C-alpha cells in the first residue's frame, strides 16, 4: 500500500474508461420510506408491530424534541429507536455520525472535532461521555397525518468514519439521495420484489454500514419491516425469526452463521439469508442453505463506497454489481463509481474483472485488516502499540487465514518492566477489542532487518518459535 505513485497522481485519478459525469448534488426530494399504506409494518418491537403511520408520527414527535445540534451520534441499541432517531435527525437536517467504533478514544476525538455533538441513546446503548438524549416513541397518529417526509436528496444524512491507512478516521459523507438509492438498489439486486412484506432480522448493528443498509435502509426503501432487536446467540436469532411472519430474511455474518449451523439442528424456516463482512466458505454456505432451506446471498462493499455487489455463492463465485455501479482499474487498483457510490472510490481489495457487471474477489491488499467487519491497518495498530507507555518497540502480525475460526492478531512487544496485561489494558483504550492481540508476546527484541523493517516472514518465524518453546515441558 505504501508504494510510491505520486508522480502520475493527477492523471491516475482521471477515469480511464468511458466518460463519467461527476456526481452532482441533486436536491430532488426523496421519501423517508416507501410504504404505500399506513397499516404496513415498519418494525417488530417488544411492544408489538409498528406500522408506517406510527413510525412517521414517532419521527415527527422526536424531531420536535431534538435540540439544535449540527451532528448526532446515534448509539441506540434498539433498531427501531435507531431508525426514529435517524429519521428525526434527517428531518431536522442534522448529520448522523457513524464512527468505526465506540472506544473512548474514538469518541473523544469525534467530540473534539465536532463541537456540539449530541448523542442519542436508549436502554441498550453504551454509556457515552457526551450530552445524551433518550430516543422516545411519542408519536400520535391522530395528530400526525400519514405522509412520508420528503427529504432533499442533497441533504447530508450520514457521515461514516473509517480508519484510513494512517489510522486517522476518514469521513465519508453520504447524502440522503445516495442512502435511499442504496436501499432501493439492494432490494432490486436481491430480487426482494418476489418477497412482499418481507420481515428482516439482523444480527449486525445499524451503526455499521452493512447493518444500516441491509436492515434499516432496505426496509424503509423497499417497503419492508425489520425486527427492532439485535439477537446475538443462535438461540436468540432463532427465537427472533420464529415469531415473525414469512417471508423473512436473516441479515448476518459468517461468524454468526457458523454458530447457527453448528448449534441449531432445526432453525425456523427463512426465505433468504444474507451475509457480509467477509466472504463465506463454500461448505458453510452449503450447510446454512441446507439447514435453513433458503439461499444464502452475500453482499460485498465497504463503508466508503457502500454496498457494491451481491452473489449467490452456490450458484457461482462471481460477484454481480448492483444498480449502475461500475468498476475500473488502473495502476493504483480498482475504483468504484456510479449508482449510489459517493464519487470515485479506490477499493482495498484485489479484484479481477470478468465483464462490466461481474468480478472475482481475490482478498485484501496488504496492510489492511478486517476482523468481523471491523477495519484497520497494521500501520495504525503498530503506531498505537508504540505509543503505549513503557513500550520500546512493538509490531502486530496478521497470521494466515484459518478455515474454521476468526483469525486474531498477534503482537510482539519489547517493554522491559511491563506486563502483557498492562499493555493490553492500555491498548484497549485505543483500539477496538476485535484487534486486541492474542497472543501478546513479550520479547527481548524484534527481528528488524538491516533497513530497520520487520519482514512478515520474520514475525511468522518468531511466532512459531515462541509457540514451540511454550510446548516444551
Amino acid at each position, binding site marked *: 500500500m505504501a508504494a510510491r505513485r505520486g508522480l502520475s497522481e493527477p492523471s491516475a485519478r482521471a477515469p480511464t474508461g468511458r466518460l463519467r459525469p461527476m456526481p452532482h448534488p441533486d436536491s430532488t426530494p426523496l421519501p423517508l420510506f416507501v410504504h404505500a399504506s399506513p397499516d404496513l409494518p415498519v418494525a417488530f418491537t417488544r411492544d408489538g408491530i409498528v406500522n408506517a403511520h406510527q413510525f412517521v408520527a414517532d419521527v415527527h414527535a422526536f424531531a420536535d424534541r431534538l435540540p439544535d445540534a449540527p451532528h448526532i451520534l446515534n448509539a441506540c441499541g434498539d433498531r427501531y429507536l435507531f431508525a426514529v432517531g435517524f429519521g428525526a435527525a434527517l428531518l431536522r437536517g442534522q448529520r448522523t455520525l457513524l464512527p468505526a467504533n465506540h472506544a473512548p478514544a474514538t469518541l473523544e476525538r469525534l467530540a473534539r472535532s465536532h463541537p456540539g455533538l449530541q448523542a442519542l441513546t436508549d436502554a441498550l446503548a453504551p454509556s457515552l461521555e457526551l450530552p445524551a438524549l433518550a430516543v422516545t416513541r411519542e408519536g400520535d397518529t391522530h395528530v400526525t397525518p400519514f405522509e412520508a417526509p420528503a427529504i432533499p436528496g442533497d441533504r447530508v444524512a450520514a457521515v461514516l468514519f473509517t480508519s484510513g491507512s494512517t489510522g486517522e478516521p476518514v469521513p465519508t459523507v453520504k447524502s440522503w439521495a445516495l442512502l435511499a438509492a442504496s436501499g432501493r438498489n439492494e432490494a432490486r439486486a436481491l430480487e426482494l420484489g418476489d418477497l412482499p412484506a418481507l420481515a428482516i432480522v439482523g444480527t449486525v448493528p445499524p451503526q455499521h454500514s452493512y447493518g444500516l443498509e441491509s436492515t434499516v435502509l432496505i426496509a424503509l426503501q423497499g417497503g419492508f419491516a425489520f425486527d427492532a432487536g439485535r*439477537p*446475538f*446467540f*443462535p*438461540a*436468540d436469532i432463532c*427465537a427472533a425469526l420464529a415469531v415473525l411472519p414469512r417471508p423473512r430474511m436473516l441479515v448476518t455474518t459468517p*461468524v*454468526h452463521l*457458523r*454458530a447457527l449451523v*453448528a*448449534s441449531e439442528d432445526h432453525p425456523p424456516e427463512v426465505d433468504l439469508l444474507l451475509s457480509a463482512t467477509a466472504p463465506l466458505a463454500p461448505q458453510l454456505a452449503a450447510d446454512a442453505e441446507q439447514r435453513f432451506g433458503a439461499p444464502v446471498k452475500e453482499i460485498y462493499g465497504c463503508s466508503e463506497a457502500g454496498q457494491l455487489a451481491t452473489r449467490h455463492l452456490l450458484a457461482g463465485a462471481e460477484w454481480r454489481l448492483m444498480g449502475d455501479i461500475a468498476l475500473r482499474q488502473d495502476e493504483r487498483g480498482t475504483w468504484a463509481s456510479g449508482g449510489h457510490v459517493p464519487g470515485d472510490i479506490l477499493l482495498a481489495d484485489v479484484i479481477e474483472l470478468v465483464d462490466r457487471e461481474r468480478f472475482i474477489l481475490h482478498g485484501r491488499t496488504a496492510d489492511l485488516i478486517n*476482523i*468481523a467487519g471491523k477495519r484497520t491497518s497494521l500501520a495504525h495498530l503498530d503506531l498505537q502499540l508504540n505509543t503505549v507507555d513503557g513500550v520500546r518497540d512493538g509490531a502486530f502480525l496478521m497470521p494466515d487465514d484459518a478455515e474454521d*475460526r*476468526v483469525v*486474531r492478531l498477534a503482537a510482539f512487544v519489547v517493554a522491559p518492566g511491563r506486563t502483557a*496485561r498492562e499493555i*493490553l489494558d492500555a491498548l*484497549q483504550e485505543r483500539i477496538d*477489542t*476485535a484487534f*486486541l492481540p*492474542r*497472543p501478546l508476546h513479550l520479547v527481548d527484541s524484534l527481528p528488524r532487518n538491516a533497513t530497520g523493517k520487520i519482514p512478515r516472514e520474520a514475525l511468522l518465524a518468531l511466532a512459531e518459535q515462541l*509457540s514451540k518453546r*511454550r510446548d516444551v515441558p
Partner: protein
Amino acid sequence: MSTATALTDHEAKLAALIIEALNLEMTPQEIDAGAPLYREGLGLDSIDILEIALVISKTYGVQLKADDADNVRIFGSLRSLNEHLQQHRSK
C-alpha cells in the same frame, strides 16, 4: 490475578474448553475463576462469547440467550458461568 483460588474439576474442564476454543496462550490454572470473562480479565469480546456459546451447547447441551437477565452475572466469571452450566446442563 493474585488472589486466584484453585479451580474445581468442573471449572478446570470449562477453562480448558474455553482456552482450546479461543486458542488462548494460557493454562486453565492461570485463569482466575472469579475474574470477569468479558473485556477485562481474559479480555474476551463478542466474537469470543459466540465461540464459547458454541462449545457450551455442544458439550453441556445449554443454549445461552442474550436476553437472559442474568447474562451479565453468568458471564461475570468462569465460576458463575460454570455454576449456570452445571444447573442447566442436559449432557
